[in-house]
């Protein structure tokens, strides 16, 4: 049954966008406007918490006004609505503008406002409740439909005559069944750890207890795969890999800027760069680009407070960054460029009068002198050069993009969607500093601009105080407009300012940043303390875990599926808010802001685990984007195939210096975009469903990997194989018993006897002998197998069959070198000797084969001897049983599908195997190999595979099972379940 650990009713913390504020007090030294009206009280933000009511709760229907006073006003109007719906607030243009609680008569006035508003059109009650949930509401969601406050408002609106929809959310998950603990662990391992779970891990969750599953999930969060999950997940939001896909990281440009003197010197001394920059520059540029992603990964992997994402007083540096930034982490040149350690940036200087450098074309900057290295003010990701440069600013944008994305990533607020969209062209055309004065603009800019101001020290590309003189990052066009236009209006700039005086002061949530020199650090601290930070973290990681963006409230009631979307949004929003609270305080008694704990709860939730529904038409079963079987990303699919087969599609022996990870792969490079991946530059949204082209990528992966995977695996010793332990290449659907022998005798006189024993059922059988390792060299000789005689005996010792080259049993066949032969010699490894054998009574039997070989080459002759049934679908052969058991294993490994003997899906797979096997046996196959060169190809990824004795040269397939298993792997690797976890 559905676990509801986190589905209990919870009062919802409100992502309250309407913290309508204006920085009313000038910030010393930062510039900024100080005389504009605003609604922030001078002592800070308006309280958003519900005020305790001194009155007893009244009954809404009996006395709506009393109910309004006791419940609605304190718990809804004054706590949830007043921030925006107030004179001077961002919702002042709406019909619902309330009096605040400190205004005498507010309760009566507000009550009458609502009674009249609803009385005029009772349907407004329904719209009002939807807006409270976020539907087409400028303030976004402020009440969850399961919350007490929502119920209070609904009850009241109904009591005053409003039309309300009282359908309940409580049955959202009714009938939904979760994936089992084992299935959940498997999916989580593939997605979060990029590997399959171990047997021990699977065993540990077999109890079905949530506690055991939580522990096992936690155990996944380590190692290379988890690191990749963190890097990819963070990049999917921050898109910093754009700097590795064509976008230039100007903030780290050692050619153009002398502000990293050690780097500029190193670059300059590398000589003329007409033919390209030195190799270490790639490590520097990529290191600077990936540093924020590595920071997030470091924080999570080391169980540090997730708040450090915006507060860390360090950054992550690789060896060359360590050298240039003087971080002193102990990293040396011999360390990989992908080794990162936490360190500080102590290698940056200001463009002040002590900095003297000369730019020489093709060489870079020759540094003559520079001032002191700055104590770089780190603020986690926010102060990293890549983050700042990903959202470059301009003289007119003034850090607003940085602010907008800071809100989005770290506070979960999409400002562009949060505010009522202005439709008044006059307002939109306002040129009188509209962002500060025009309500149509201030609706967003009241939030946006103070945070933009907090980025005041970072210039257009993200360099610290990069204006000439190193005092600030303000553009000269603002400070000295007269330099650019003779009749320009005088600047508001005053020497020492670090921010624009015609903008709101740097700050956050109605609080001003106290010190211009570290306002971004201050902002990071404030964001980390904001309750929205925790829920934003859940939303930040939602796509990486769930394969879908977190829901936003549907915007138009007339849209198809509106009700389901709204219900889903409400349920998900409630979950996220609730989980955010726990994350902030410590999940299940754990450390506060521990991201691993957060991931575990996300993986435990029905949003990840919902697997089926026994109730048709419930909200959860109709909601898009939840539960199992989401499309794997190219990175996830590549990792899954690697976990199963042992290598990445397309990789080879040679490191690729052009790739950050030095491994070129088909899914990671060539087909990444075609398989719905992103380049983080122009293409930033992943495809979440397969198209024809994408299905071709999946199929191509399967056909190119399956053949070498099968050949390589069967060449590993039994017990060390990835897929085919316990079965060998000679086990066919008709196999009863079989065994491989090494024939060392080198002449007929020395022939040796090789005995096969086993249990046989009654019926027609075939003894089948194959030569497995033909070899020929013009100088060294020819290796061949000669069978002297074959004897079959019952357990009593009775001989039931004898044959030799002079006394062939009727119906026996010797097929070799593409021809039927008369004797019992096999010259090529394409053939076999088959001898009919009738078993009258079930029991133990032995087959003795006397043989010798013409020995040549490094190995002795190898021979397989088996007894086969003549009916591959009798259900009675050991081969069929072994193959079906292997198919069960493969279905489990590749598809996460648990089958048992007798299951329909197993029978279908077996039927495909039989058809393939029979078809292959009927084809001409000159070499009797896993692939028939030159018509067929099998692409091995390592040159060593082709070396003498290598697996590519051990691909004999006398029983056609290598070929057949290859087809089965293609079938599995293109299955819906393989591509969707």
């Amino acid at each position, binding site marked *: 049954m559905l676990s509801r650990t986190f589905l209990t009713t919870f009062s919802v913390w409100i992502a309250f966008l309407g913290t309508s504020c204006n920085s009313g007090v000038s910030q010393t030294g930062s510039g900024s406007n100080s005389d504009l009206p605003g609604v922030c009280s001078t002592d800070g933000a308006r309280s958003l918490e519900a005020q305790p009511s001194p009155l007893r709760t009244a009954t809404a229907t009996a006395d709506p006004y009393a109910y309004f006073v006791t419940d609605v006003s304190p718990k809804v109007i004054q706590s949830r609505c007043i921030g925006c719906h107030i004179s001077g607030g961002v919702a002042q243009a709406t019909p619902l503008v309330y009096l605040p609680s400190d205004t005498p008569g507010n309760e009566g006035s507000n009550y009458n406002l609502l009674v009249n508003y609803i009385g005029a059109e009772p349907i407004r009650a329904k719209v009002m409740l939807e807006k409270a949930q976020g539907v087409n509401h400028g303030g976004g969601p402020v009440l969850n439909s399961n919350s007490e406050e929502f119920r209070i408002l609904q009850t009241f609106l109904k009591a005053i005559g409003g039309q309300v929809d009282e359908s309940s959310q409580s049955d959202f998950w009714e009938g939904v*069944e979760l994936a089992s603990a084992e299935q959940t662990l498997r999916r989580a391992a593939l997605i979060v750890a990029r590997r399959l779970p171990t047997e021990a891990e699977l065993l540990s969750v077999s109890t079905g207890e949530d506690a055991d599953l939580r522990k096992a999930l936690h155990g996944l969060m380590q190692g290379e795969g988890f690191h990749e999950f963190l890097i990819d997940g963070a990049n999917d939001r921050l898109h910093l890999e754009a700097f590795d896909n064509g976008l230039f990281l100007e903030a780290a440009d050692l050619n153009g800027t002398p502000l990293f003197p050690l780097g500029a010197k190193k670059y300059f001394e590398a000589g003329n760069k007409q033919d390209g920059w030195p190799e270490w520059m790639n490590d520097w540029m990529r290191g600077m680009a990936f540093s924020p992603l590595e920071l997030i990964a470091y924080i999570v992997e080391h169980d540090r407070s997730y708040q450090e994402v915006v507060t860390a007083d360090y950054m992550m540096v690789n060896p060359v960054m360590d050298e240039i930034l003087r971080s002193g982490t102990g990293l040396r040149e011999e360390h990989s460029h992908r080794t990162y350690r936490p360190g500080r940036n102590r290698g940056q200087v200001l463009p002040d009068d002590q900095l003297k450098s000369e730019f020489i074309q093709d060489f870079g900057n020759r540094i003559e002198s520079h001032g002191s290295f700055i104590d770089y003010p780190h603020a986690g990701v926010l102060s990293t050069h890549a983050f700042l440069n990903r959202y470059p600013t*301009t*003289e*007119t*944008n003034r850090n607003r993009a940085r602010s907008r994305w800071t809100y989005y990533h770290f506070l979960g607020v999409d400002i562009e969607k949060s505010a009522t969209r202005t*439709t008044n*062209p006059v307002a*939109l*055309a306002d*040129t009188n500093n509209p962002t500060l004065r025009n309500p149509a603009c201030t609706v967003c800019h009241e939030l946006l601009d103070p945070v933009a101001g907090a980025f005041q020290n970072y210039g257009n590309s993200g360099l610290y105080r990069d204006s000439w003189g190193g005092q600030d990052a303000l*553009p000269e*066009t603002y400070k000295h407009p007269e330099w650019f236009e003779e009749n320009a209006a005088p600047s508001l700039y005053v020497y020492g300012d670090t921010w624009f005086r015609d903008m709101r002061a740097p700050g956050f949530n109605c609080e001003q940043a106290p010190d211009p020199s570290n306002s971004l650090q201050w902002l990071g601290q404030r964001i980390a303390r904001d309750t929205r930070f925790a829920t934003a973290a859940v939303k930040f990681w939602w796509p990486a875990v769930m394969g879908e963006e977190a829901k*936003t409230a*549907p915007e138009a009631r007339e849209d198809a599926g509106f009700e389901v979307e709204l219900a889903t949004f409400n349920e998900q929003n409630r979950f996220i808010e609730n989980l955010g609270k726990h994350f902030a305080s410590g999940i299940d008694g754990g450390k506060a802001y521990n991201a691993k704990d957060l991931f575990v709860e996300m993986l435990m939730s029905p949003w990840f685990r*919902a*697997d*089926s529904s*026994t109730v*048709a038409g419930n909200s*959860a*079963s*109709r*909601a898009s984007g*939840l539960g199992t*079987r989401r*499309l794997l990303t190219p990175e996830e699919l590549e990792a899954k195939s690697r976990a199963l087969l042992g290598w990445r599609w397309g990789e080879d022996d040679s490191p690729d210096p052009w790739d950050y990870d030095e491994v070129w792969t088909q899914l990671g490079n060539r*087909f990444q975009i*075609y398989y719905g991946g992103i380049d983080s530059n*122009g*293409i930033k949204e992943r495809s979440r*469903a397969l*198209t*024809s*082209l*994408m299905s*071709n*990528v999946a*199929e*191509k992966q*399967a056909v190119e990997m399956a*053949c070498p995977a099968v050949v390589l695996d069967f060449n590993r010793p039994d017990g060390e194989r990835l897929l085919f332990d316990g079965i060998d290449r000679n086990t066919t659907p008709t196999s009863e018993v079989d065994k491989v022998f090494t024939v060392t005798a080198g002449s007929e006189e020395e022939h040796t006897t090789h005995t096969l024993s086993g249990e046989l059922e009654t019926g027609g059988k075939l003894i089948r002998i194959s030569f497995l390792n033909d070899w020929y060299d013009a100088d060294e000789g020819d290796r061949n197998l000669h069978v002297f005689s074959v004897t079959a005996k019952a357990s009593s010792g009775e001989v039931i069959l004898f044959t030799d080259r002079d006394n062939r049993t009727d119906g026996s066949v010797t097929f070799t070198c593409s021809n039927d032969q008369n004797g019992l010699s096999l010259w090529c490894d394409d053939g076999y000797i088959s001898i009919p054998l009738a078993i009258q009574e079930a029991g133990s039997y032995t087959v003795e084969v006397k043989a010798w070989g013409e020995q040549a080459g490094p190995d002795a002759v190898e021979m397989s001897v088996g007894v086969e049934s003549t009916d591959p679908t009798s259900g009675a052969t050991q081969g069929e049983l072994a193959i079906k058991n292997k198919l069960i294993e493969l279905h489990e490994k590749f598809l996460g599908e648990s089958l048992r003997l007798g299951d329909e*899906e197993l029978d*279908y*797979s077996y039927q*495909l195997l039989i058809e*393939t096997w029979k*078809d292959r046996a009927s084809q001409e196959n000159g070499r009797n190999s896993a692939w028939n060169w*030159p018509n*067929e*190809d*099998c*692409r091995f990824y390592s040159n060593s595979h082709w070396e003498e004795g290598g697996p590519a040269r051990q691909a004999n397939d006398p029983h056609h099972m290598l070929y057949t298993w290859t*087809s089965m792997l*293609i*079938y599995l690797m*293109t*299955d*819906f379940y393989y*591509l*969707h976890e």
Partner: protein
Amino acid sequence: MKRREFLTRTMLLGVAGLGLRVPRLYGAPLSPYSGRLLVTLQAEGGWDVTSFCDPKVNQPGEPEITNWSKSKEIRTAGNLKYAPFAKNTELFEKYHRYMLVINGIDAQTNSHTTGVLHNWSGRNAEGFPSLTALFAAHNAPKQPLSYINFGGFGQTGGVIRFSRLDDVNTLRGLLEPAYSHFDTWGNQDVYHRRLSDMERIRKYRQERFARMLEDPRLLARQQANLEAYADALESKSALVHFSDYIPAESDVLEDVQVHERHRSNLPRQIQMTIAAFRSGLASAADLYTGGYDTHTDHDNQHQALFGHLAEMIDLFWTHAEEAGVADRITLVIGSDFGRTPQYNADDGKDHWPIGSVIVMERNAAWGNRVAGLTDEGHNALKVQPTTLKQDRNGTLIYPKHVHKALRRHLGLGSTTIASGFPFNNTEDFAFFG
């Protein structure tokens, strides 16, 4: 037996071999799509139409609206006015008969996100698909590349899925997954797997899909993803034909450095789109180019951008003509919104909600025409929807009006798919007569 012949035979064999409820991989081979074609060219960032198709000159006492108007006057090509800027003359002189220019479209926002959403879906609320998605879903839902998106707005509303085309050589290697290489020594094609085996695997896979889809316990995500995969497989066999149409590696058009900050791969987008149209595998495409958000150095950047745009429009029609598909194409060109009717302190222009759309068809009866009005300060004016003349009692033109008219013009107006995304209480503008 030739590879193509073999494929055809195996496909035909499959027809008799399968009787499934849902997927139809072995159903009748898809005929190449031969109906109308739709392309949008999304110039992202907010273009300055006052230097393009809604030319404005400086007014006494007002901030300068265009620098070019200090020395030049508005020009005319046919009935169209255009700014003597960049390569507009070449563009409008050559193509004005193809063009319907709709000026004064009020995007009702200065936000890029909303502007893109509004202009390309017709609504400033999430949920509506792009016009191209609707078009493809109605006209050629089964074609494997029916809807191609090169970036920009490509929301589908769940009615179809878009394909992305990237490197040509990579694409070529993808069209027939089992194909390995051509063996010049043996003068034959080499495969990773026999095609008969692939067909058998595909048959079993399709049968498994059918069984999965019959499960009444499926969640919406599972069902949607299953259907997507089944659809993808149903039409994928036709992809192999695309190799006959995509350009040789040596013929692939190179990217263009538009100006120092902006590089464009529009030539390749156009080349691939026309190739896909010619193959009959596609019906709609979104071309995408950026760089128009010129808050600084506006004129220089727009000069290069509009010059590039003119060249690309010409390239598009030239390729379409050569491919024999020009008569079937409707090309819609637009942006997020416009740019302010004055320069800022950095010689840039900021966001302005009023913009334009250009609809092009070869020798269209409604071509060589301008609809919509703006005043000299580039403010939108109300017009009467039927006469398209200025009318104080008329209405401003919003993206929904353009979309509603385009839907009707493209034959989508009363279709089942479009009815799921209605423009209620929206006037009908007679843009197309």
